[in-house]
């Protein structure tokens, strides 16, 4: 058998750039990606026979998207590309990857995990109704299939994606009932010095907002969501919120796009044994990673939003840096000035990231205010009251203990969409700092695995 090679997981901006560096160094990496086509979520390519051009699909990011796609196209034939393949486990120095029910055990000399991010969600009463989507999913519907999630959509949450997706929907001709931002203007003003680290991006954000306002879309900041109304048969009918003055309003709508920035898809890093660190500003756990992409595990490297939420451009740099670190650790010569330049660029990305966290704060206070009847874990249908009961009556003050007792985080999504909010509910009910609640341990399979799965004959 040949020497184990380098494996890259993910073909978004980080994975593509990592693969590019590896190929440039004369290697032929395996690139495993869940998507049918490369590009990841942000630069997702439309299905065959869809004919929207780059400007229509990616707007201001058209050039970057085209560059990443071209970069990947140039790698064809030089990499072992495995699309529609799920890395469902990392165990004993092997990636377990499944495609069409065939699973293969792949050894590696170095592993670069570029697993991206998913939406960070805060429950609101009624968020289990059909018609409620995450912001990311709303964007995917539009980008991939040219579909809107509803005929009258409310965008609720906070973070750059809120305005970007609302703007994209508006441009696509969808009807937007309102954009409701829980963050306050003064948070954004306070974050300005950090946001100025990337003036272009800041300007872009301001332009989206201006365009929405020009189009007559109601945009409100400092809101507090109260409930999504509707019924199980017909789904969403309306949304109730309180404005910044405490006045209650109800908006008719048939869909809600919900999200509070992003959370890393860090299960694979967890299964690979990487250490995690708590970020008190973001109130989130991230895998420990150096600016050069080294994790706490010797031959495991992390890049992109799966490690640190730096956005697409930051992900490209991080992918390159992680690959260069892997190459250096494998004994290859690496251009130190390139590493230094990329690192310098990342310092700016990191400063901007801190600005975003400050400008669009995670609404932790909502978790404390959630009514007992609100569902926290949608997979298992567990309410905030049930979760609070295992804290107060059964003494569960740690995330995994509370999961064992209540099932919060035990369902299909493995806690992706409830763990952050669940931890806030636990911390508040227990009266302990969030960090003390800990985080849910990653468990294979990373996503549901069919009983039809069998070993690929060697």
């Amino acid at each position, binding site marked *: 058998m040949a020497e184990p090679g380098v494996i890259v997981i993910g073909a978004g901006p980080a994975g593509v750039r990592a693969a590019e560096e590896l190929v440039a160094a004369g290697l032929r990496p395996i690139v495993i990606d869940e998507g049918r086509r490369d590009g990841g979520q942000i630069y997702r390519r439309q299905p065959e026979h869809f004919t929207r051009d780059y400007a229509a699909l990616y707007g201001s990011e058209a050039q970057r998207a085209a560059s990443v796609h071209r970069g990947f196209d140039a790698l064809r034939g030089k990499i072992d590309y495995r699309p529609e393949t799920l890395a469902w*486990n990392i165990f004993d120095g092997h990636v377990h990857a499944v495609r069409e029910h065939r699973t293969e055990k792949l050894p590696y000399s170095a592993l670069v995990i570029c697993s991206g991010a998913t939406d960070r969600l805060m429950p609101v009463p009624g968020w289990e109704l059909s018609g409620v989507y995450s912001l990311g999913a709303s964007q995917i519907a539009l980008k991939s299939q040219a579909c809107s999630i509803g005929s009258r959509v409310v965008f609720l949450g906070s973070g750059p994606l809120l305005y970007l997706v609302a703007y994209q929907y508006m441009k696509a001709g969808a009807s937007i009932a309102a954009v409701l931002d829980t963050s306050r203007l003064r948070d954004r003003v306070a974050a300005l010095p950090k946001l100025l680290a990337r003036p272009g991006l800041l300007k872009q954000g301001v332009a989206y907002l201006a365009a929405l306002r020009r189009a007559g879309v109601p945009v409100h900041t400092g809101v507090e969501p109260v409930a999504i109304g509707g019924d199980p048969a017909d789904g969403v009918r309306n949304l109730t919120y309180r404005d910044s003055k405490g006045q209650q309003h109800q908006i008719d709508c048939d869909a809600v796009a919900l999200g509070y920035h992003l959370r890393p898809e860090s299960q694979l890093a967890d299964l690979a044994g990487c250490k995690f660190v708590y970020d008190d500003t973001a109130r989130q756990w991230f895998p420990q990673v150096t600016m050069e992409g080294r994790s706490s595990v010797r031959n495991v490297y992390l890049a992109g939003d799966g490690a640190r939420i730096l956005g697409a451009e930051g992900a490209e740099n991080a992918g390159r840096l992680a690959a260069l670190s892997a190459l250096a650790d494998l004994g290859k010569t690496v251009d130190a000035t390139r590493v230094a330049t990329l690192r310098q660029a990342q310092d700016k990305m990191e400063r901007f990231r801190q600005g975003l966290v400050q400008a669009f704060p995670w609404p932790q206070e909502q978790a404390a205010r959630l009514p007992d009847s609100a569902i926290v874990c949608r997979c298992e249908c567990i309410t905030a009251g049930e979760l609070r009961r295992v804290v107060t009556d059964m*003494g569960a003050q*740690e995330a995994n*203990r509370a999961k064992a007792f209540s099932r919060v985080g*035990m369902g299909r999504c*493995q806690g992706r969409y409830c763990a952050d909010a669940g931890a806030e509910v636990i911390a508040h009910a227990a009266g302990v700092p969030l960090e003390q609640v800990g985080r849910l341990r990653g468990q*294979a399979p990373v996503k549901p*695995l069919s*009983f*039809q799965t069998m070993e690929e004959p060697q």
Partner: protein
Amino acid sequence: MKPVNQADVLIIGGGIMGASTAFFLRQRGVSVILLERWLVGQQASGVNFGNTRRQGRFLEQLPLANRAHDVWTRMPALLGEDAELLRAGHLRCAYRQDAADKMEVYAREAREYGLELELLSKAALRSRYPFLGPEVIAGSLSAQDGHANPRLAAPAFGRGAARAGAHIYENTEVTSLAKDGEDFRAVCADGREFRAPVMLVSSGAWASKMSAHFGEPVPLVVRGPQMAVTEPAPYVIGPSLGVAGGTLEETLYFRQVKRGNIVMGGCGRGPSTTDPRYAPVIPAHTLTQFRQMARLAPVVTKLNIIRVWSGVEGYMPDDLPIMGPSATTSGLHYAFGFCGAGFQVGPGVGETMAELIATGATSTPIDAFSITRFESQLVAAEPHADAEP
């Protein structure tokens, strides 16, 4: 509650054995301190399959299992909760005639111990459990057995014991144990000391080091169950099921919880150590379970699994637990090494050990489980093939 460091009984290990013993000692008015290294019921007691079956146990264990069966029935009255106990039956399935013959013999013998089993022909199985695969040729149903939620049972006993006045100290790692005059003395990692004239070692896979310390080494082997759970599906399965009399690889077992998820395990065990962070599920093992499920209940293979887990279990070479008094040290008792099959008997072990400690005798025979059986044969061996939890 004010910290207490002296009691009538000191219990080392807060699994289902230690927690239920603490509970039943309090019922008898005996003061108890229980020390648990992590959290109550978090290791073998919390990660196991959740079978509450008597069927298939060694005959000499049936009196204990019957006693436990009775405690499980009384749990709502004793603790105010039932740990999701579902008396939906336990069905053993045979693929071959020799296994079916053995089930027949077992059913006759078990009746002597008060356990009624119903033998089912292939046709009867087909009509009653249409989801079974065509290879299943015979079955044996224990209608009153079933399954429960292991994540809830031991902690429920722990909380019940605490409510009744037991002093339960979690996150308390014992670093040394000694008999010091009349008292046992436990020193903990943080320097705290606890004393009692009577001590129970119920620390599962961690117990053999402690028994060795008192001159009673045992050949305990550490293994991890290989568990998986599916996404929820309509509730149709009913009994807890397992393959009997097959090869190790064939020995799959599964159950469906009321909310629809199917929990499965078996086809052998995984390696494990006493460090619970390294109790892995071997990916290839899960694939073996997939193949075996296609034989036992093909319909289940339409589903996906959503999570796997393992844990730390202590196995003895003869597949019997260690239970009863020490032969070397007066006042010392053991209840550990339940060989991956301790969940159902757990509450019965607690009631029996409390009786033994409080009265000096038990109304349930436990001589077969004495630690003295290992006095002369210190050989580590693989656990038996046909062992459902």
